[in-house]
């Protein structure tokens, strides 16, 4: 019986286009990735239709989580500015921080302890701070300690246009937000920016129509 001879084919597949695409995707993700600084708490912010971009420096950020713990942070490109803030606070609140502890503050993204516990927190290296239980900055209806944090930070940045960011968790209660606002208001600050995630304006709403018009005008 003459059998049909199947010609042997090489199983070698040319992977070059595959590799090309893979590395293209890799490049895209490397470019698109932006590492965010590690925060002591995870916050899920609400969505809004607002399109304003988040400032990266010259800003004070107050964060509150779902249980009402409040954290304070300074956003600045220059380490010296952050150092000046802690130095100022150290003097006004007479905390007795050492040079090394103040240097550690510069690398700390946010603080969530009362003034009495600040020395303890800053004694811990930045990498290990996430294991340090932070009870949050004490707040009350009059502003609490947050009031002094804001006042001293503003005092350090005099002459600069400072922005005030508020980052809150979806499930945080309104009174926590109100207390944060009070602390700002006591410092004569009335203009805030709340950090949110972008969502589209609903189609057919006035804002949606306005946005479409702006898009058509090339903005």
């Amino acid at each position, binding site marked *: 019986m003459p059998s049909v001879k199947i010609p042997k084919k090489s199983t070698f597949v040319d992977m070059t286009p595959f590799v090309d695409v893979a590395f293209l995707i890799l490049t895209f993700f490397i470019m698109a990735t932006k590492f965010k600084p590690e925060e002591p708490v995870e916050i899920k912010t609400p969505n809004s239709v607002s399109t304003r971009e988040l400032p990266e420096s010259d800003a004070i950020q107050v964060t509150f989580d779902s249980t009402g713990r409040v954290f304070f942070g300074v956003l600045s490109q220059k380490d010296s500015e952050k150092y000046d803030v802690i130095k100022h606070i150290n003097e006004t609140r007479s905390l007795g921080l050492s040079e090394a502890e103040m240097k550690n503050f510069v690398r700390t993204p946010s603080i969530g302890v009362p003034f009495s516990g600040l020395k303890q927190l800053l004694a811990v290296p930045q990498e290990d701070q996430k294991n340090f239980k932070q009870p949050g900055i004490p707040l009350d209806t009059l502003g609490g300690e947050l009031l002094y944090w804001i006042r001293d930070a503003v005092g350090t940045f005099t002459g600069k246009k400072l922005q005030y960011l508020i980052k809150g968790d979806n499930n945080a209660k*309104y009174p926590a937000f109100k207390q944060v606002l009070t602390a700002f208001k006591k410092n004569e600050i009335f203009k805030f920016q709340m950090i949110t995630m972008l969502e589209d304006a609903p189609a057919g709403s006035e804002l949606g129509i306005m946005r479409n*018009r702006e898009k058509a005008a090339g903005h």
Partner: protein
Amino acid sequence: MASIDDSGGGGGHKKGPGVKKAKKLSTAVDMTPMVDLGFLLITFFIFTTTMSSPTTMQLFMPKDTKDEDLNKAKESGALTVLLGKDNVVYVYRGQLLPDASNFHTTTFKGIRDTIIQMKKDVINAHVHDAGCTKIQEEAKVGNPNVKPPILPDPNWQKACLDKDLVIVIKPDEDATYKNTIDILDEMAISAIKRYAMVDLFPVEKDLIKKTSGGN
């Protein structure tokens, strides 16, 4: 593909006897480890990347002064929105009636229609005055100096029709931060120019308690 073909073109050469022809080596490289590594990195970056970048929403609060600025709002153009527990919204127009007959319960879905209806009613009841001309002028020109710039409004004649509309937002103690942001967002969505965030009156607190308890 990745190998260089050099079999042709060399026919004219005559090598002498004893000259050994160099053994041809394949230039094809095994790319499997590279692909492995590539995909490992892709997976890593996909997981770490956060695609949507955060934005910010602006809020202006008034100074805590004792003058009764809020009462200057025309009663016909005032809408009070109360935020309660479990994403429930309460709303009433103008003054709260003693028998609370204008006090309604709604949701975040329903509040948009309420606001749009209110806006329509205010526009229909609009009476032109001197202050209106100024608002119209501003809308006609726009403002390129602010960020984001305000474009000249093609419908500038309509710009001041809703100037009497004021929405008063009163979040209860049980309202969440998300509720507060959502209602402020509704102001942006429906293009409400005047709104204020204030505390509840005791009467309203009682009403919310009564309404939510009855359900």
